[in-house]
């Protein structure tokens, strides 16, 4: 059952990411991305991490994507800019991507046989996550707050209206 679900989710996920890349309509792009994120949430659920699964869907598929779609609606771009990419660079890029993909597969393959299920056993529940965040990962957790400040300030600086000269 789990295997079946995994492959189903995987296929949907990959397909939606491809759809996102190929489609030229921004609204579709965003919706495909939502779908991909939702599938990712599914993976987490399959891995016994219900909390992360839920958070993944709420934050990415919910909050961030809604924001995206609003932005797209507001600035109202109909068509993306026509890509003036030369044909050969496209194929070239495709080739490189395939090679990278193969390389990553090979990497993983080498590890399949000896991968143990190890590490921290239970990380899925909110209690566990909370405990880890405030004990072992307290420092990185605090640093993210600095990161968020930096991102906020940066974003605001770049988009706010200029002072009148």
């Amino acid at each position, binding site marked *: 059952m789990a295997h079946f679900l995994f492959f189903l989710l995987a296929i949907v996920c990959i397909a939606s990411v491809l759809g996102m890349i190929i489609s030229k309509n921004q609204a579709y792009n965003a919706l495909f991305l939502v779908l991909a994120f939702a599938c990712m949430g599914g993976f987490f659920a399959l891995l016994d991490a219900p909390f992360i699964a839920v958070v993944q869907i709420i934050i990415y598929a919910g909050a961030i994507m809604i924001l995206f779609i609003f932005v797209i609606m507001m600035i109202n771009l109909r068509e993306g800019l026509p890509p003036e990419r030369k044909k050969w660079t496209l194929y070239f890029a495709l080739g490189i991507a395939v090679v990278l993909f193969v*390389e990553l597969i090979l*990497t*993983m393959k*080498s*590890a399949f*046989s*000896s*991968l143990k299920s*190890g*590490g921290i056993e239970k990380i899925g529940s909110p209690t566990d996550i909370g405990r880890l965040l405030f004990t*072992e*990962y*307290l*420092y*990185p957790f605090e*640093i*993210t707050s*600095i*990161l968020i*400040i*930096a*991102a906020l*300030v*940066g*974003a*605001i*600086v*770049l988009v706010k209206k*200029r*002072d009148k*000269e």
Partner: protein
Amino acid sequence: MNSFSALIPLLIIVFASLCIMILEAFLKKENKDYLAYISIIFLVVCGFFLVRAWNKDFSYFNGNLFLDNLSLFFSFIFLITTFLVILISMKYISLQGVNCGEYYSLLLLALSGMLIMVSSGDLLVIFLGLEVLSISSYSLAGLRRKDEKSSEAAIKYFLLGCFASAFLVYGIALLYGATYSTDIASIINHFQSGESLGLMALIGLGMFVIGFGFKIAVVPFHMWTPDVYEGAPTPITAFFSVGPKAVGFAVLLRVLYPYLKNVQDSSKAIFLLLCIISVLTMVVGNLIALRQTNLKRILAYSSIAHAGYLLIAILAQDNASLVFYLTVYIFMNIGAFAAVIALGKKDKEYLELEDYAGIGFKYPWIGATFSVFLLSLAGFPPTGGFLAKFYVFSAAVRQDLVPLVIIGVLASLISVFYYLRIIVYMYMKEPSYEVDINIDNPGLFLVLFLCLYGVLQLGIFPGNVLILIKQAVTALL
């Protein structure tokens, strides 16, 4: 020693950044220079705490954060970098119409990112620190909003930076998958014990190096550098060319030094790849620099080339020479950029080579100091640049990396050409048009003086600094 003291320097910088943001709202426009002074005061306080922590080995958060001597030395260098950048920015901001509140606070946030990175041995923390630095940098690059190039720089930096971060984080994930740890020491242990999963860990490390290769701008991960350097506000370019690069090397040093030293067989591949990258970087950086006529782009490619020399130091496993090179590099590069910034007035920067004709006689102090910095970048004695290159190359010779050294020396011979060309323009060309600049810029002249002092001090009396550096790098052994 587990102590809260380890956290204090970082807290001060973050606090300073927040203070600046709040204060900006209350300050009148003509008093905005106070923000720079306040930042400097905080930097000095932070520096005081860093100095006090020397040899104390403070750590906190179960060792996630530690202040060994190496972290302290690097942190201190970064403080100096930020201090110099703030000084060269003060006038620039008002002349080029950049909003200053966010400017200083983003700069300080970037500094905090660098402090986080050098004072941890945990890849997760290092990654987060890198993101703090990067995100602040992306916005800093776009701050000159009157200029489209600046926005272009920001978006390019952002997109490619994300790209590199993806590699970095994937690499960390692979390392974690292979070793169940994000701690550098235990990852190296794992490598040493030679358990299975070696390949996965190796690829993880490779991707980690790729991600950092972007930050330190080595070929072929350097493409963003000239465009971003050209578009960003010039003091920020100065910051980019030294800060992220130095911190990138600091982290690579922490990871690669024990790896190359302790892991004999599998490290050969990484070693060879780094050799290739180093050669490519030196050659490509210097060759393209020959073609440039824009000062910022010349210095951008020169900074790429210097990353190549610095990689030699990593390969030679001579930590002291790497740290020394970085120290010298900070002074000479910021000095050179300061001289470039000096040639500007209201809403106008002089950045083309042609603009520099006859500057040496018209503004002797700028011309003379700029020449010294360029000579130092080219590696002439008795400047610090000479000694730095000398230490790196002689360390490489001791490690039997003679081909690398030969290429390095040839590459620096090429570099002499474009550095000297600037000097030739300054002293031997007749100016064809008037270049008038705003010379009422005490902060900048202070920087010129300090950098000149630094370059000469490190070139002629390097003894004391070398002793400190030797103490600092013992933390790695």
